[in-house]
């Protein structure tokens, strides 16, 4: 089927089986490999993307479901080669170690901050609870998100 959606601000059209995972279409057809697969069953959050502003595990979404939606992946966070404030905070505060969870973590944090620009540490913990990280112990990730409160 033909699926049309907005990806990182630009319109895209793909000819695909509507039942394919959004994750695979992003990675294989559109070659945006910043979205990672960690478990394939919605537990780890490495494949998190934003669909109409909501954080969603793209391994659990059929591409047919994003028809006419706005999809944002990690590749869409930096604008004009400039890191977003959140990305900068992640770098400066050591919130990324091996980096594999970072794309999903950034998107979850991004959605959280848009919904609640002044979250408490506990709010951040709740907001990021669907994204697993095995390197950092989360401390520096939480600090980085708190540093971006407005």
């Amino acid at each position, binding site marked *: 089927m033909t699926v049309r959606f907005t990806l990182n601000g630009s319109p895209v059209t793909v000819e695909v089986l509507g039942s394919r995972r959004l994750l695979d279409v992003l*990675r294989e057809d559109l*070659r*945006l*490999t*910043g*979205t*990672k*697969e*960690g*478990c*394939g*069953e919605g*537990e*780890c959050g*490495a494949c998190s993307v934003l669909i109409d502003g909501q954080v969603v595990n793209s391994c659990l979404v059929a591409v047919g479901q994003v028809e006419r939606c706005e999809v944002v*992946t*990690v*590749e869409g*966070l*930096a604008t004009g080669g400039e*890191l977003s404030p959140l*990305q900068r905070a*992640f*770098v400066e*505060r*050591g919130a*990324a*170690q*091996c*980096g*594999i*969870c*970072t*794309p999903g973590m*950034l998107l979850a944090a991004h959605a959280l901050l848009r919904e609640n620009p002044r979250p408490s540490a506990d709010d*951040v*913990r*709740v907001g*990021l*609870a*669907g*994204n*697993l*990280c*095995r*390197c*950092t*112990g*989360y*401390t*520096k*990730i*939480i600090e980085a998100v708190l540093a971006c409160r407005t």
Partner: protein
Amino acid sequence: MTGRARYTDDLIVPGAWYGRTIRSTIARGAIRAITFDPAFDWSRVVVVTAEDIPGENVVQLIRDDQPALAEREVRHQEEPILLLAAPDRATLDEAARAVHIDYAPAAAVLALESATDTYTTIEIIKGDVDAALPGAEAVVERTFRVGLQEQLYIEPQGAIAFPHTGLGPGDRGPGVTVIGSLQCPYYVHRALKRCLGLPDAQVVVIQAETGGGFGGKEEYPSLVAIHAALLARKAGRPVRLIYDRHEDLTATTKRHPGVITHRTGVRRDGTLLAQDIEIVLDGGAYCTLTPVVLSRAAIHAAGPYGCPNVRIRARAVATNTPPNGAFRGFGAPQSLFAAELMVEHVAERLGVPSLDLRRKWMLGVGDTTATGQKLTESVSADLVLAAALKAAPPVRPSALPPVRRGRGVSLVFHGSGFTGSGEKKLAGTIAVECVREGEFRILTASTEIGQGTNTIFCQIAADTLGVALEQVTLAPQDTSLVPDSGPTVASRTAMIVGGLIHDAARELRDRLGARQRPPLRVEKTYVQPDTIHWDDQIYRGDAYPVYAWACTIADVEVDTDTGEVRVTDLVTAVDCGRAIHPVMAEGQIEGGSLQAVGWATIEEIKMRDGRYLNDRLATYLIPTTLDAPRIRTILIENPYSRGPFGAKGIGELPMDGPAPAVIAAIHDATGAWIDEVPATPEKVLEALHGKRETRNGMRK
């Protein structure tokens, strides 16, 4: 950060086929027959069995017991038997369903207690335990159990193999290049050479961006790389072999489970007279790195304490469970868990605070360890203990029932670098080059797996050369470019390899100062200082060049109705000599601590017929942001004279302390001892229940 970093599965390889490993579905038995369903068109796929192995059918490591593909018998569930490659996943699935393996099952040994075969035994003797114990005024005996743990790097194992056609640019004959997610390029290089029967130059191993390792990508990637290479050579095209989480959980190595028994003799005033310790670790079905894991477990078993009479008897046994292997801490978390809880039990018997015993027993400069190593510098048990106590938050008031709060403390040390003569045998090599004026390059096989290797290496070189950080780059981790610096393991990277970079950069600086012109290259190979003496035969001497130290304070809340344990706060004071990059050093401590909290509380692997039951992320749980305590790290710097700028190892240390501190905190909260990790809700309730029965319904 921007999504541009390329991990193995992110690499786009035109024309590559997909690979799959067909594995044993029994724990032990003979392979009677492999049949291929004639209804499937086998010309559409490539099939590899043990017969297709051009070299030796063995995974090169310590002992030659593990085949790359099982031939006649299988020794554990999920053992690789056959490989498939196909142009697309659907064909691969179809082919996998059309392979049938017929077994003659045999009786499997599935518990450490019933094992009869031993991989290795170690005995460490100091003084005379048998003579000292009768003179003790109290002898306390306890047995501790530690469970399996999965490393759970978020990026699963994977490799892509490219057969050399002999025609392409840079192709040196009929070899193979493997790009993969790995910690130790030269381990993989050696394994590939042997199994494929190829000379050095025809095998190239390149590390892709690697999404976490924690030891799990120390030895296992050799197997993944061999499989991918065998498929690629037979297919005559690149093959990608990427595990999904399920396969990764069921098939790859775990932390060694074990049973550790202590018998400790003391005087009434708390004087430590004798420690008699027995360690049994389960190595699983093949040897892998088990003897070295056992070695580190044994050497750390007495804890960071000075005792005149010590006997440590350690053995690793063989079972028919999937092989256990390297995991951050490498045996030390297991034995230190027992050692630290033993301090608590002795303190309870004597009716004194356990902190008093720690202060009385802890090692200082001039004291000797269980192996008879006299500690001469950078000994920080007292410093980390004082710093952690000072930084600990005030004890919180009691919670309302059914929640109880408690606090526990632990004191640990961790040897930096390879054990004993390991570094001497490895003779790790690096090079630092001045490529052209003001441009420097480090060549090392030490890998970045998220722990900050690249940054600290560049920082060490830049600081030594007196140049800006941006002027130093790292050569890619490609065995055709970089020398063998040894594996990225054993908390050795900053201290040993960083030390070599420091030395090479110093020489390069001097040569540039003496007006030598680039290009210049300085190569350095590790030479064991002649003050370090170690005897492998009797396990006596300087087990490690130096030790790092940590004191951890854990605060917990225990729900006595559900048995759930929540670690609310964790304070760790750490001496790593010198923190080259403090933010990254803290990151290591925080991440390692949470991994240890997971091991202590929720990370449990259950087995049936030798198969792991928690084979998905929905059933094997690791801590989320909601489970993670507030972690506070205090870095103490007590420099080591031979480390770069004073640095010692840091990577594994944080795995050692939290588990015993959490268990001690559960006891403080509830009065119940759980001499076991993980302390799952079932075990907590069982411990509380037992207590209620023995004390007539009275809970403490």
